[in-house]
């Protein structure tokens, strides 16, 4: 037995982890999520922003990290637009702005049945995944007082909304009434900015000079009302970077906070989180979200219970328990072997 455990095939461990992750996904279990002091500091910094404040959201990551950072981005944008905080978006990584566009307009944003009904009555397009029918896209429509599920070309009428279905809208923008997020007034996309640290130094000197034109209309950014009163980076109320490497949070702290004193918050991949913890202690970072756990805690703290972060935390916990068990078994085997050798 001891020998078997000592030479245990790594694929058996993979299998256990795989089953440990699949079970809670299929079972739909949800563990409660509680906020940590690290996440609380982000929420506190955001709550200090008054309506009409401007936050610069920099997507400094690519699709390889979106499993951890995209849920943060969705929850952050939702929080900002709910609290009338204006958002200027940009990216130090080429794919970053595309991921912000996805978050605004095409990512699945899960909502409750009640919210689905409310949004549908407000004229928003609400999608539905009835149990066992996830493969095809279906959405809801109200026709003659009845709710109709539209499935590609055929129209299938149902009496009421399903309780056990999943409801979602595409993009954060769809959560709000038409005109709530006015381009140029509440939201501005500045697109990809090449140069990492150099761009941040340019922003410190002049925000319109660094960003030049917006990504949608190629018009000078200073021609939009959202930029009124914004000259240097100091005039921005907060920089929020979603970062998975260089350039990212480190550059924002060193050049952004270091040179202009702008408040910097960040969401980072779990792998890189320990490197930036000292910046929290020295308050160079006003707050930080670390990995999927950070995303889940932020969702819970801002009241977004249907977020992807929270859904991911139960399989995460299962996998961690399995890994901890294997570490304990490995150590026990080592100790028993050492004990028998000494005997």
């Amino acid at each position: 037995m001891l020998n078997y455990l000592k030479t245990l095939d790594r694929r058996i461990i993979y299998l256990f982890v795989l089953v440990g992750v699949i079970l809670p996904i299929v079972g739909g279990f949800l563990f409660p999520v509680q906020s940590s002091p690290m996440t609380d500091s982000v929420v506190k910094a955001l709550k200090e922003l008054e309506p009409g404040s401007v936050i610069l959201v920099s997507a400094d990551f690519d699709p390889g990290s979106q499993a951890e950072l995209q849920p943060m981005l969705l929850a952050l944008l939702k929080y900002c637009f709910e609290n009338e905080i204006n958002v200027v978006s940009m990216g130090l990584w080429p794919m970053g702005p595309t991921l912000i566009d996805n978050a605004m307009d095409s990512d699945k944003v899960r909502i409750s049945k009640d919210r689905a009904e409310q949004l549908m009555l407000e004229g928003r397009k609400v999608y539905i995944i009835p149990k066992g029918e996830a493969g095809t896209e279906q959405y809801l429509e109200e026709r003659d007082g009845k709710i109709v599920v539209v499935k590609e070309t055929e129209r299938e009428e149902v009496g009421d909304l399903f309780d056990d279905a999943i409801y979602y809208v595409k993009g954060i923008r769809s959560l709000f009434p038409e005109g709530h997020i006015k381009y140029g007034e509440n939201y501005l996309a500045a697109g990809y900015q090449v140069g990492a640290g150099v761009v941040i130094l340019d922003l410190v000197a002049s925000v319109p000079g660094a960003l030049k034109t917006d990504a949608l209309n190629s018009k000078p950014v200073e021609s939009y009302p959202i930029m009124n009163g914004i000259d240097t980076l100091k005039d921005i109320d907060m920089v929020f970077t979603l970062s998975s490497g260089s350039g990212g949070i480190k550059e924002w702290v060193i050049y952004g906070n270091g040179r202009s004193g702008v408040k910097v918050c960040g969401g980072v991949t779990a792998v890189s989180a320990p490197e930036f913890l000292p910046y929290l202690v020295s308050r160079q970072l006003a707050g930080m979200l670390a990995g999927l756990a950070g995303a889940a805690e932020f969702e819970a703290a801002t009241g977004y219970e249907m977020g992807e972060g929270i859904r991911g935390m139960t399989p995460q916990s299962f996998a961690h328990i399995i890994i901890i068990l294997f570490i304990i078994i490995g150590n026990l085997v080592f100790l028993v072997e050492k004990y028998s050798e000494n005997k």
Partner: protein
Amino acid sequence: MSISMSISVWVSALLTLAIFSFLIKDNPLYKIAEHIFVGASAGYWFVFNFHNVLLPDLFKPLGTEFTSKWFLLIPLGLGLLMLMKMSRQYGWLARFPLAFTVGIGAGEGITSIIKSDIISQLSAVTFEMPLIMLTENMGKMQINVFNSFSNIVYFLAVVTGLLYFFFSAEHKGMVGKTARIGIWFLMISFGASFGFTVMARISLLINRLQFLIEDFLGIVI
């Protein structure tokens, strides 16, 4: 269960499974997926940078506003010199743009990094983390036990950790014992980093499995 009919979902799912097959053992399916990923990434980055950086920031201004933007010939020249790296005979020319880049990076970075990574950190440990923290409770000052303990641990970790990397004195006696405590703190920080790494990797696995189960297989929970 209703398997997706979308071609893009099928391609994503098959490539995901091909990459996962490496967990069993190295195989041609994994190699194919790996090569597709590398090739598609390189192609995408080239096209993206050409259309979003080189064209609008270099070629277009040089073509349309040459009289006012002639100085862009300098980065163009430096960029072309960088390509000389591919030639054995003229490879040395690539040293000029490299020297320029390294010089700019060092000049910009040194003062900022000293300020943010050394002075601010030292200032935080020295002035902003009192070993005994007091808090006011109903008009009376009380010791905040948790924060005081945490500040003391932080202080000890910094001092002993720094001493471990102090090589001007032999690590014997008191110095050796203190440095040994530093090693323990370092080990604990490596453990925390490992924990964070495991969490990150499992998060990626969860995301892919959610995609396979929900979007590809159409199993709704």
